Structures are given as structure tokens and as C-alpha cells.
């Protein structure tokens, strides 16, 4: 279980992370999404103890970061941290020396899965192979908590799917997995939770299926031009409203069916409720403009 509460990290007067809370229970995969500069990397730095938060709390299985945590916590940075002059095999040896939980059989199996040559030096591996080796080292300690920064960088689609399968396997065995990604599609497939950051703030977060169940577009078509329903803009159920001629689109954050029924009562001649995929929800949440905040 990884739990972050009201995390704040300031650099001078700039708030890189501003009150972020998120939970990754055991068995869960949480996708950390956000544009560049939204606070993902700073959040990771705080999680791993490389930056000292100005406020807030971070807990791993209920306890603050301590040397014992590192036994069970694996981190895979975006750029694989490898030693150029060591072979893949020597990297395994280094990991074996540092981690009591290191599982040699698992490590060998992962080398095979990623088709990595154990005798090849890291500097002779491609970008994707380096990523694969970093993942191998991380998973070989059978971590109960796994933090990954853009884990599929440089991998072709086939190995990207392999990585997702490995993360799903880790989660099925009870690990908490937190990954940042630019690719919403990856998160949408494998994750069950999401945290969307924008300018250091958490703009949307929680269970992905629950978000999809809540976030809908109610589209109403009126006989003449759509009425200007000023009240809707202040409705807590409504994210925003768009009017184009006879068409009114209400971006609901919840209760779309009730909103549809109410619009029907206002004389709309056609109403439909449109489902939204995570990518659409994500783009809306990080768009510029007034986006009301919601608690996760």
C-alpha cells in the first residue's frame, strides 16, 4: 500500500506539487498522468526520499520511508540507471548482493522473456533493452511496491504489452504499482486507478471504472436554438456546458441520467448520454481554462 496525503513541494515560490493525495492499495495499479511539468517527477522524488516535502505525508504499508522500505520497494526511472561497462549478468549479481529478496530464477526467466543476452554490456544494449534490463532488476526482488517512471520508454508495442503483463502479474500477487505515463492507452488497459495532475494539483483521481461511470456527456437537441441554462454552469454535477446552435452538450461529472431527464423536461426533442474514454476525460481534466477541482 502506497499512500500520499496532501503532499506539497515548493521550489522557492513555485509549487511543483500542491496538495496531492493518492492511494495505491495492494493489488492495485495506479496511473499517474499529466502533461510535462505537472508534478509527476517531483511526486516521485518525494516518494523515494530524494526531495523533502514542505508538507504532507507519504506512507509505505503504513510506515514512512525507512531503510527497510527499500527491501520491498522497486523504482524504475525513465532513463534506466545502469553501469555502461557491466554486463546484464553482472547487473543481476549487483542486485543479488543488495537485496535479500532477490530471486535468481525469476531474474533468469525475465531475461528470457525480454530476449536479453546476459553477457552483453549495458552500453551495447538498445534503449528498449536497457529499459527491459532495468525492469528485470526491479521485478527480480519481487517488490511489494513498484514505482515506475514511463516504464515502456523505447520498447516496441510487443514488449510494451509484455511490460503491462508483468505489472498485472505483480499486482495479482499483491504488489502496489504506481506508474507515470504519457500514454493514456497503457494506463487505461492495465490500471484500475488513476491520478491526473495539472500544474502540481490533483485535478481528477480514483477508480477508473467509477470515473467512466460518472463522467458522461449529455447531449440535448432542441427544436430552435438551445436555451441558455445559466444555472447549469454552477451545478455541482456539471463540469462545463457547450452550446452550438440547437445542440447543448453538458459535460457531467456525475448523475448524467438525472441531468438527461431534467433536460428532457425542458423540451429537448432528442437526448442522449455519451460514454467517455479515459483519454477524453484526461484531456478535458488537463485542458486550460477553469477546471473546478474535485476530491479524489
Amino acid at each position, binding site marked *: 500500500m502506497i499512500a500520499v496525503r496532501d503532499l506539497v513541494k515548493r521550489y522557492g515560490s513555485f509549487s511543483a506539487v500542491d496538495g496531492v493525495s493518492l492511494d495505491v492499495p495492494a493489488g492495485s495499479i495506479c496511473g499517474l498522468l499529466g502533461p510535462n511539468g505537472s508534478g509527476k517527477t517531483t511526486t516521485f522524488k518525494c516518494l523515494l526520499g530524494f526531495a523533502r516535502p514542505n508538507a504532507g505525508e507519504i506512507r509505505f504499508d503504513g510506515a514512512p520511508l525507512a531503510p527497510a522500505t527499500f527491501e520491498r520497494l522497486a523504482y524504475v526511472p525513465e532513463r534506466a540507471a545502469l553501469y555502461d561497462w557491466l554486463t546484464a549478468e553482472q547487473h543481476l549479481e549487483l542486485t543479488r548482493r543488495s537485496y535479500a529478496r532477490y530471486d535468481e530464477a525469476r531474474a533468469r526467466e525475465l531475461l528470457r522473456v525480454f530476449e536479453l543476452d546476459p553477457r552483453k554490456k549495458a552500453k551495447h544494449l538498445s534503449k528498449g533493452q536497457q529499459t527491459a534490463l532495468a525492469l528485470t532488476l526491479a521485478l527480480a526482488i519481487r517488490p511489494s511496491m513498484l514505482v515506475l517512471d514511463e516504464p515502456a520508454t523505447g520498447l516496441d508495442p510487443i514488449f510494451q504489452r509484455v511490460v503491462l503483463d508483468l505489472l498485472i502479474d505483480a*499486482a495479482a500477487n499483491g504488489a502496489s504499482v504506481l506508474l507515470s505515463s504519457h500514454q493514456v*492507452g497503457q494506463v487505461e488497459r492495465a490500471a484500475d486507478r488513476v491520478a491526473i495532475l495539472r500544474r502540481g494539483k490533483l485535478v481528477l483521481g480514483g477508480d477508473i471504472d467509477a470515473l467512466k461511470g460518472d463522467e458522461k456527456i449529455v447531449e440535448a437537441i432542441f427544436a430552435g436554438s438551445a436555451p441558455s441554462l445559466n444555472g447549469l454552469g454552477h451545478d455541482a454535477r456539471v463540469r462545463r456546458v457547450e452550446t452550438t446552435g440547437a445542440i447543448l452538450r453538458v459535460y457531467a461529472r456525475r448523475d448524467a441520467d438525472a441531468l438527461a431527464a431534467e433536460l428532457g423536461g425542458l423540451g429537448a426533442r432528442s437526448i442522449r448520454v*455519451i*460514454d467517455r474514454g*479515459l483519454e477524453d476525460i484526461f484531456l478535458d481534466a488537463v485542458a486550460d481554462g477553469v477546471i473546478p477541482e474535485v476530491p479524489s
Partner: protein
Amino acid sequence: MPAVVTVDSRSGVPIYQQVIDQIKRSVALGTLVPGEQLPTVKALALTLTVNPNTVARAYRDLEREEIIETSPGRGSFVRGNGVVGEMTRAVADVAAKAVGEAVREARSLGVARPDLERMVERALARWYPEETR
């Protein structure tokens, strides 16, 4: 069995709901028969490349609706006792959903209620000829 279920992760329909709908449909169509074992949560999660919690949630809901049953250590099975019960329920659920979608679509196209009722009558006459006067 895993081949019976597929998910569209880009769809706005929650993934657990897609799994539920398809398992119900398989039960209704008889491609999953009472007593048949379902894949484990982990196996289905890996087959579909979706989160294990998502599959576990779908199974929990299917248990609550008494479509499947899970016995600890043995796995999940399509319910076998009271065979007629869960088949009828699964069939009714799938059909109700399809009818609901059709009515919603008709309304969104601006079809008036009396016109829709006439359409339904025509469809009933076509597909249930023996019960039509």
C-alpha cells in the same frame, strides 16, 4: 472460455461492466454452461491485459447476482443448482439491456412515443407470429 470475453479498453463503458455483460451473454447463449469453471481472476486479467481488481469486481457482482459461485480454493463456476433460474435471469438481463438501448436510441432520434409503440408492435408481430392475434 477466455476467448469468449474480450474488452475494449478505450470504450467509455467500464471494463468490469464489459466483462459482466459478456459472461451473462455467454450464459444466456449457452456457451458457458452451468457447472463450468471460469478462469481464475489472475488468468483472465492476464488474458485480457486488464487489472486483476477489475476482473475480481466483475466476478463479485456476478456472484451477488447469483450467475456464478466461487468456492475458496476451487475457483469460480457458473451456478449449477436451480439451472433454470440463472439462465432465465441472464437471458432477461441481456434482453432488457438491448431493448433499453433501442428505446434510448429511438428517443434520441426524436421518434414520438406512439410511433415507437407501433414499431415495437410490428417487430413483435414479426418475431412472435404465433402469439400475435
